[in-house]
């Protein structure tokens, strides 16, 4: 694991037991997260990105579990494998070291508790019992997210709007100074103006605090604004990863190219919208070899046989494809 990395995921496999069979949601994923960097995971539904996020705090829903691989977290110079931690140890680590904010906070709060109670109990759960300190800190954080602190603290969740709740949740996520903040679709289900506000807020947090962020979304444009590096996921695997500019200006993987092409341009005329033909893969019986080959126009025999590993394209930029060299860049 690198010197300035804070998280190292190595050959991670996550599976779910479903009625029909085993769903291989995350397949052989490896990456490192560096201090203070924002790494975005982009992919469609079922690409495994959300499962990946939840696995990092050992909170995979339903029957999901890590079947192989390691999730090494380095906090305070000690290294632990999150995948092998006991429930009690993982509980201590959650929110305090690694905080995760889920999609749309509309129902993230207990309807019968005031926000202040939420904050206080979170602090207490991690051994922080000084009420005054907690109060001061939470007021500061709520100001940081541009809310009226006093009012929010004494409110019940139903008294706050969707946008306010999302901001409150983000503020609360910073309460214990986590080293890593994972955000899973934090702006989906919010209106577009609120989305913009939240993004601006996240940018602010990123610049002011010493945090590493993992940002999970299907929305490329948001990733472009926030992330330092972007990883595209498909069929449970990382198919391309690299600095944001590289990915956006010289994408090498056919899937990434397709994603970028599919984004409608404001400047464009009424040309037909592009969408990647085909359907997402069945993760119980995933396609052999490269998961994208059924939908890829460049695929041939070798793509069907064995899954390509990530190979270096340029500085920091890797792609998992046999054909990338032969594909011309598009404008």
């Amino acid at each position: 694991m690198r010197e300035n990395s804070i998280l190292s995921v190595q050959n991670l496999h996550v599976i779910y037991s479903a009625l029909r069979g085993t769903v291989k949601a995350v397949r052989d994923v490896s990456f490192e997260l560096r201090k203070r960097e924002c790494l975005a995971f982009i992919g469609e539904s079922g690409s495994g990105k959300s499962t990946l996020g939840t696995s990092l705090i050992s909170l995979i829903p339903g029957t999901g579990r890590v079947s192989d691989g390691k999730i090494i977290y380095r906090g305070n110079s000690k290294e632990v494998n999150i995948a092998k931690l006991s429930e009690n140890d993982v509980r201590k680590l959650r929110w305090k070291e690694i905080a995760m904010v889920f999609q749309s906070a509309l129902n993230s709060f207990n309807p019968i508790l005031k926000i202040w109670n939420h904050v206080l109990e979170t602090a207490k759960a991690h051994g922080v019992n000084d009420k005054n300190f907690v109060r001061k800190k939470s007021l500061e954080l709520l100001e940081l997210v541009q809310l009226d602190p006093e009012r929010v603290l004494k409110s019940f969740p139903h008294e706050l709007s969707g946008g306010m709740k999302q901001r409150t949740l983000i503020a609360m996520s910073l309460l214990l100074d986590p080293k890593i903040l994972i955000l899973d679709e934090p702006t989906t289900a919010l209106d577009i103006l609120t989305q913009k506000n939240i993004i601006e807020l996240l940018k602010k947090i990123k610049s002011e605090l010493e945090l590493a962020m993992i940002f999970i979304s299907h929305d490329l444009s948001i990733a472009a604004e926030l992330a330092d590096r972007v990883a595209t996921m498909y069929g449970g695997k990382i198919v391309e990863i690299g600095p944001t500019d590289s990915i956006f200006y010289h994408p090498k993987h056919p899937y990434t190219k397709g994603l970028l092409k599919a984004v409608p341009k404001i400047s464009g005329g009424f040309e037909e919208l592009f969408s990647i033909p085909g359907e997402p893969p069945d993760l119980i019986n995933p396609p052999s070899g490269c998961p994208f080959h059924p939908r890829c126009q460049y695929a041939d025999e070798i793509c069907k046989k064995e899954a390509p590993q990530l190979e270096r394209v340029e500085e920091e930029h890797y792609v998992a494809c046999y054909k990338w060299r032969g594909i011309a860049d598009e404008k």
Partner: protein
Amino acid sequence: MGWLVKLFRNYVFRRAIRAFITILIVVTITFFIVRLMPGNPIEIYIGQLMSQYGMTFQEAKNAAAALFSLDLDAPLFSQYLDYMKNLFRGDLGRSFVSQGVEVVDLIASYLPWTLFSVGISILLSFSIGIALGIVIAYKRGGLLDQIISGISTVLTSIPNYLLGIILLILLGVQLQLIPVSMMRGTVSPGMKPGFTWKFISDVFKHAALPILTYVLSTVGGWILSMRGSTLNTLGEDFVTVAKARGLPERRITFTYVGRNAILPLFTSLTMQIGFMMGGSALVEFIFVYKGVGWALWSSIGQRDYPVMQGVFLIITIAVIVANFMADLLYGKLDPRIKAGGSE
């Protein structure tokens, strides 16, 4: 002062008003049922008096009027007003059978027993039900879940009065666990009321079977409802977020899952109260437990109309009041209600 007005503009006030209006309506319906039904009891009674005692029509009518505290010659509407006036004064008429005894007094001697037995039963049943319900929800699909769910379903299928008979047979006759004298009545004959251990233990011994009957016949429903509600709540986002926040399991179970899972059960609570009070007519019959339920049967059997009317009224009013209290409790537990929301 302003906050007082605001609070009362809301939930509590509205529920109280509704309870009051319902009582008025029920009282009115009762009055008109008694007078307008085929087989008008007053006319029957007059007829009875005439044939049995050889009274003239006028004499019989006067006697009936005295028992009902009504002026039978006045137009119906003014009789209705009299009736309402009497009610507010606590005058429910006099018993036909126990000559001249005030209905209110009779009811006052019966009501406490029913409130006692039904009240304890509801508390026990609800508590045990939600405790077990949440336990088996967490252990969903396991052996404990299957057994308890199965037993619960069987228990809810047995009508409470039939369960009472079964208990009588099982505990009293077959296994001879309980002496027959304990299975009937509210207290042993000749027992002096008072705060003595002797009296209190006697009361509980006699109430044991009725309470057991009520509890066993309703606990299954609570277990299954709570199980369902808990399973629903477990799927809620805020529970997942609570885990992500690193909250201890215990806290999540009680304050996140438990407290929220109970809320939907309150609608059933109001129905259950009504059902239990209604069922007291049968359960008290089985155990000869002299509460208002037994009094209803007894007064119907003896055609003692003033008592019948009074008991029916009291049972209904008790249900309305109990429901109102349940509504209040719910308002306290769910903050979404307090803040001036609609029902």
